[in-house]
């Protein structure tokens, strides 16, 4: 009862009362930039971290995964937020600039494939069908081209633009090669535009981050995806965490090892890993398994102590 009362009190006066130790001695700046998908988690971590360490300035930019990597690999920022793995050429550039990297998982996200609720004939899609639909020079113009039992209405496609990590991941997993896609679809970097598009067009099909589907489940319908084992799986927190949903992806942060020598960056990364599960759930993502966070903390600590003994 006391606990409930306390938590009510806390939410009521969250800005003034703090239930945890406040450390004012730690000072400095922690710079994050990158994926807009990872942004809500980074923002949440920065917000909570600064309650405990009010004199550390944590800033988060949104330049997209690729844009963040560009800044990261030249050493302009301490931590890169990414909704895909670092590419080889990015890793090479980082090495050229003498930047050592620690790769850490932060949360899970799924890519939802959605249609208009008026579309009731599509029950599920296989990865092969998705490939036929989205590959460059695709011959699929009507739903019937995809499956003879579907009506002969034209397919209208909606998807993210080429700067998005979602685009990179989707094309890599569906096409087998990253960034390979047909280009005659309506593209937007703003997922809300895609949601609105699909919700207003009964022939539409689109793909974007799972969190955008959850918030708009009333106006769009998600399509179960048939995985490699032949079972159609609906995206959900559970299937994404387990990895049974084919289009689940890890969200990561890339930490500059040299930056992490600074106590404020080190404290922030540890804080983020400890709280990522709780915070990612709060902002609409799927937390990783507890063990993965424990491993990530171990990996980070090991990397740091390894560096110290050099």
């Amino acid at each position, binding site marked *: 009862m006391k606990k409930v009362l306390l938590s009510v009190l806390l939410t009521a006066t969250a800005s003034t009362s703090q239930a945890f130790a406040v450390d004012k001695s730690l000072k400095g700046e922690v710079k994050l930039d990158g994926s807009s998908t990872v*942004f809500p988690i980074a923002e949440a971590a920065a917000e909570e971290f600064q309650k405990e360490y009010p004199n550390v300035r944590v800033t988060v930019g949104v330049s997209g995964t690729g844009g963040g990597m560009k800044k990261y690999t030249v050493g302009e920022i301490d931590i890169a937020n990414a909704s895909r793995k670092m590419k080889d050429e990015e890793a090479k550039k980082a090495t050229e600039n003498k930047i050592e990297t620690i790769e850490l998982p932060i949360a899970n996200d799924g890519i939802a494939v959605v249609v208009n609720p008026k579309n009731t004939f599509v029950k599920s899609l296989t990865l092969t069908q998705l490939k036929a639909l989205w590959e460059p020079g695709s011959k699929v113009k009507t739903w019937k081209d995809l499956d003879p039992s579907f009506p002969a209405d034209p397919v209208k496609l909606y998807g993210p633009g080429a700067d998005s990590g979602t685009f990179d991941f989707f094309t890599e997993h569906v096409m087998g090669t990253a960034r390979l896609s047909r280009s005659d679809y309506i593209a937007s970097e703003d*997922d809300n535009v895609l949601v609105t598009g699909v919700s207003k067009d009964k022939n539409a099909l689109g793909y974007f981050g799972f969190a955008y589907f959850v918030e708009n489940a009333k106006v769009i319908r998600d399509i179960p995806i048939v995985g490699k084992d032949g079972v159609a799986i609906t995206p959900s927190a559970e299937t994404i965490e387990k990895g049974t949903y084919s289009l689940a992806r890890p969200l990561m942060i890339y930490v500059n090892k040299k930056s992490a020598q600074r106590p404020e960056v080190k404290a922030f990364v540890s804080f983020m890993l400890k709280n990522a599960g709780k915070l990612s759930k709060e902002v609409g993502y799927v937390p990783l398994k507890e063990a993965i966070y424990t491993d990530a903390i171990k990996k980070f600590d090991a990397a740091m102590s390894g560096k110290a003994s050099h």
Partner: protein
Amino acid sequence: MNPIEGTIDSQSKSETAAGVKAGVAAGDEAALHPMFHNPRKLRLFKERFFYGSILLATLCALGFLFYLLFSIGAQGWEHLDMDFINNFPSRKPAQAGFKSAIWGTVWLGGMTLIFSVFFGVGAALYLQELSPKNRFTSSIQVSISTLAGVPSIIYGMLGLGIFVRFMGMGRSVLAGSLTLSLLIIPVIIIASREALKAVPDSMRMASFALGATRWQTVRDHVLPAAVPGIATGVILAMARAMGEAAPLIMLGALTYVAFVPSGPLDPFTAMPIQIFNWTSRPQEAFHDLASTGIIVLLGFLMLCNSVAIFIRLRWGRKL
């Protein structure tokens, strides 16, 4: 009856009188041509048509504006309180505020104002009052007009290359305000030159005749007379700069900042960036917050414009 209608009516009355006079003067010719009265009717019809279409244009513009204001107001009104102004952004929409964005824009605006007035008005003075009129200065004039039409994102790229990277300012208030200054300096130069052109030459001549130097003439007579026009141009340009998101995003301005900048080299965020971020979030509550942000930004711009009107009235009366 509104004043515009009044004028139109009195105009058409005097026109009728003129028409009658013309008719009398034309005399027999009018009698020979039965069609004589029709062109006058046609002219009156054209007059009414013109009046109607500009009224319609005005109503359309106002209609869209009020629709926009109403829909934003309805969506954002609820969150508009002191918490919104005093809180930093948050993952929880109920606690999220606009503080770092407001102060970021104030910093950005203040510094942009200093740079752009200094360089903009300075360049206009040189070009209008001091420079020789030759092919070189007229080519500068053409370039400035062209620069005024360059898309703002290009200035963002320029700022990223020059201020952020080459000059090593980082993503600071200084780099941001210099970039925005570049964006609006051409507009300020053009507006200031128009204002300076409008100052009658007799004023300059009188000043020179009394033995004043060129600098004294400009400082004491030409510039004060041009202030209302210059101020209007500057404020309109500033309002544009304050509403820009594209060049700042290109520059790599930050999205989550939970402190107020304390110096020109501090990182910052700005109102349009925060609004843009909130509109792209999946949760509806953040979209409402974006509307609240738009209300605050509009209020800020209206404040700027009223300062411009104040300056214009004040200085206008003095002369």
